């Protein structure tokens, strides 16, 4: 992207001669600069986690969350511009509400992803708007089972077993592959431990600011609802993650 722009990036609705939309690629840059967000589809539910960077010591603990609830059974984690994420979250809640009004049944994660991605895509079509500077993980358990989707700034969305977006996503993805390669899959409880470990692994203590680990899940233990992972389990997972990191360093 060193030769960026050259006049083809002044507008989302203008292609470059080789068929690229620069504004969307810039939006992806905004995502890559953000703390990592991870989603893991387990055998009995889904787990969402984000590494929430603390840019000031004056911030209130637990504030400015990056994971939102959209419906009883669906959560959303995002990496990128938080204000964009809040706006997309509001739109998501509108869609959920609208669907229930029409059909008197809870929306599936797939349909919600489809509708929200349409909204994201619409922001890549007009000169009057800019694309969303976020990648969004949508996770939930519906009548088709545990589901996980990722919506990118271009508006494209795919379903995943495990997904990572934001800074250090490459490393996180290889780790997720290892986790998912386990015979018999992972349960949500195991998933929480693994995802906490991966986030601590991806976090660069030297370069990055301090962070808070934010984790939610949808599983039998949370009553099929999107809820924060219980405090004690989160503490346990973080302690195990730190221990695993130190062990790894000794081996090096």
């Amino acid at each position, binding site marked *: 992207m060193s030769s960026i722009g050259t006049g083809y990036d002044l507008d989302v609705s203008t292609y470059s001669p080789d068929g690229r939309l620069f504004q969307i690629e810039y939006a992806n840059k905004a995502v890559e600069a953000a703390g990592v967000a991870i989603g893991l589809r387990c055998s009995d539910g889904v787990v969402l986690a984000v590494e929430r960077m603390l840019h000031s010591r004056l911030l209130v603990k*637990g*504030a400015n*969350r990056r*994971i*939102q*609830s*959209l*419906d*009883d059974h669906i*959560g959303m984690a995002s990496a990128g511009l938080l204000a964009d994420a809040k706006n997309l*979250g509001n739109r998501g*809640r509108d869609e959920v*509400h609208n669907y*229930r*009004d029409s059909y008197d049944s809870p929306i599936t994660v797939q349909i919600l992803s489809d509708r929200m991605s349409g909204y994201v895509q619409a922001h890549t079509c007009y000169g009057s708007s800019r694309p969303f500077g976020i990648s969004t993980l949508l996770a939930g358990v519906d009548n088709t089972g545990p589901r996980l989707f990722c919506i990118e700034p271009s508006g494209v969305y795919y379903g995943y077993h495990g997904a990572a977006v934001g800074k250090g996503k490459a490393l996180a993805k290889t780790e997720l592959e290892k986790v998912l390669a386990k015979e018999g899959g992972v349960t949500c409880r195991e998933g929480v431990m693994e995802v906490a470990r991966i986030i601590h692994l991806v976090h660069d203590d030297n370069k990055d600011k301090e962070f808070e680990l934010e984790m*939610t899940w949808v599983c039998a233990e949370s009553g099929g609802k*999107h*809820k*924060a992972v219980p405090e004690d389990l989160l503490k346990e997972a973080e302690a195990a993650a730190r221990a695993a990191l130190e062990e790894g360093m000794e081996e090096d």
Partner: protein
Amino acid sequence: MWGQPMSAYDAFNAHASFPLPMRSAPKAQPVSHTQQPVVTGTSVLGLKFKGGVMLAADNLASYGSLARFRDIQRLHPLGSHCVMAVAGDMADFQWLKRDLGSILREEEALSLTDNHPSLSAANIYNYLSIIFYNRRSKGDPVWNTVLVGGWDEAKKESFLGYVDLLGTTYSSPTLATGYGAHIAQPLLREAFEAKAGLDGKGELPTAEEAEKLLDDCMKVLFYRDARSLNKYQIATITAEGVKISDSKSAKTEWGFAEGLRGYGAQDR
């Protein structure tokens, strides 16, 4: 008729559920939105006790004077620490359930997102009163009388409120709607005041006493209210949350009725 006392007939027929509204042939007249209830539930009761609130409602939805639906739950939980007991039009009740359900769901979603507290019973009660007053002002009332019972987790105290189709609201440690306001409310007050005193500042009835009192009142209502059913439920709301009982019946005695003219087969 405003400002006039109700006729005895109207007073005992608050929902105008009997006789069934008759439809007359359309006349060339302005469009009228005023409506009548069709399938109705009779009175509901509410009572504060030590550590919580109890609500009672029977399982009947009447079609006029016909006991049409006999397995309708008229106690509806709203979130973890609130229940509403609903009398009046059952279609409007079902609409209310939907409307409140979607608001509660959205607030619940936001409570995880922003860590703000979820809606309390007092919030829900206020919301209902606004809806009811607005709709009556449009001449299209939500044809219900609702008792809202709840436990306020922040204040550590119970909540009990009344709101009706006009948007009238009031609060009291014992409440009853419709026919129950005439028949059961005096019994509830008498028992409550005997324990807690006239100012209600004494010891409140225990859960056992409260349930016994509601059982008694539901029995009396079944004896006297022709729109009632001897199959009812009691909701208990405490700090632990909401518990709605299975349907139960009061033990009744009809032997005395044998001597009454008009009771039983009409062959005399």
